[in-house]
């Protein structure tokens, strides 16, 4: 017994070092289960406060770019207004058959909550975005984050006033997407190298793909609203091991300078989930 104590006393520094290493590594590799824990909640609120301060200054430098973006988005939305469609002749009538305008609420699926991006990184292998809107303002885990130009990511952690989203530039990120002109479902992932490009894999070779084609989110996802731009095809690569293409996409969102985002809540998700649960039980 005495020898044991002597051993501990002699190697106390080494043991302490090893203990801290194991602690750090276990935190790192168990991150998925761990990130819900109190530590990250506290960290969010503390570092969030720094980010808010910094962001107040930083915003001024990109005001022009941001205005341009919001103006483009506004123009896009204005072009969809019903009042802007006029038939040349009174016998023609514009019919909206996809939704009822007067009782829209009961059919609403996606609700957009505006949020300010206060923290952002692109230089790691797993990049996160901090948003100034938390559980008190109706944010929950697994909601989509959309920017004025396109998809940004999805929420992975929420504290009372801040939330953290995993951006498209995260190695665990996967978004189901398809080519806008039709066909070809695939999964968007990031290889951790260049923050300007992501990869869309598993596109069958029967589909004709050209440079510059738009890739959008699919309607199969219960997180992302359909038709949101993920990116534009920058390079078409043939996957030699399978008969598919793997497309290099230029992200629609400029992750270096994005400032504003919308958190998208799927109101019908609970119903969908309980239905799926039932199917799995049977």
């Amino acid at each position, binding site marked *: 017994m005495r020898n044991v104590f002597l051993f501990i006393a002699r190697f106390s520094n080494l043991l302490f070092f090893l203990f801290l290493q194991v602690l750090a590594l276990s935190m790192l590799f168990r991150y998925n289960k761990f990130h819900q824990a109190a530590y*990250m909640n506290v960290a969010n609120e503390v570092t969030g406060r720094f980010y808010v301060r910094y962001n107040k200054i930083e915003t001024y430098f990109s005001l022009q770019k941001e205005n341009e973006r919001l103006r483009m988005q506004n123009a896009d939305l204005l072009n969809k207004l019903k009042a802007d469609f006029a038939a040349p002749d009174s016998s023609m009538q514009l019919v909206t058959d996809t939704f009822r305008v007067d009782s829209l609420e009961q059919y609403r699926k996606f609700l957009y909550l505006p949020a300010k991006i206060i923290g952002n990184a692109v230089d790691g292998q797993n990049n996160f975005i901090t948003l100034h809107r938390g559980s008190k303002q109706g944010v929950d885990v697994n909601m989509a984050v959309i920017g004025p130009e396109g998809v940004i990511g999805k929420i992975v952690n929420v504290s009372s006033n801040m939330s953290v989203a995993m951006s498209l530039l995260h190695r665990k990120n996967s978004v189901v997407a398809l080519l806008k002109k039709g066909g070809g479902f695939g999964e968007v992932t990031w290889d951790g190298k260049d923050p300007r490009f992501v990869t869309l894999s598993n596109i069958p070779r029967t589909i004709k793909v050209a440079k510059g084609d738009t890739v959008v989110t699919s309607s199969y996802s219960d997180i992302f609203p359909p038709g949101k731009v993920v990116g534009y095809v920058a390079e078409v690569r043939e996957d030699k091991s399978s008969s598919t293409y793997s497309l290099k996409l230029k992200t629609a969102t400029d992750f270096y300078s994005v400032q504003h985002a919308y958190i998208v809540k799927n109101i019908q998700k609970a119903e969908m989930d309980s239905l799926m649960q039932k199917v799995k039980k049977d």
Partner: protein
Amino acid sequence: MSNLVRNIIRFAFFILFQVFVLGKIPPLHQFIVPYLYFLFILWLPFKITRGALTLLGFLFGMALDMFTKTPGLHAAACTLIAYIRPFLISLLMPKEATEIGYSEPSITSMGFVPYAVYVLVLTFLHHSYLVFMEWLHFGNFLYFIGKVFATTAISLLLILITEMLFVRKAKYRTNVA
């Protein structure tokens, strides 16, 4: 300014500088990530117990991890260099110098070549360990090697600039003070 106060200020300064200045630089190349924050550990006084140094390394790395949302990544690398540091100093410096000499590692207190070796080895260790853990997630050997060397080169450049900008008056430790 006492040693304690100076190091508390450095702690905050290095973290904030890393997050809000270096972290905001648009990436030049996929291999290059500018790291400077660990210079805090390199600049800690000689006279600090081994256990305290290791713990401080851990806490310092954890502070950065809170900002980058990677709990444990920088903490592990910082703990490693904080643990290795005393061995390296005792290798590079004659015993008497650490006992009577200056308060913290610098060019004047250690001499140019020993200090350069000290910085080079610890920077290289820090980056290798950090990139190694990223590599475990990804697995591309060329990427690993390239990133370690490019990041080390950039860090050494930054440290050189910092040393030239902030000339630290190497205080000679006396019994009176």
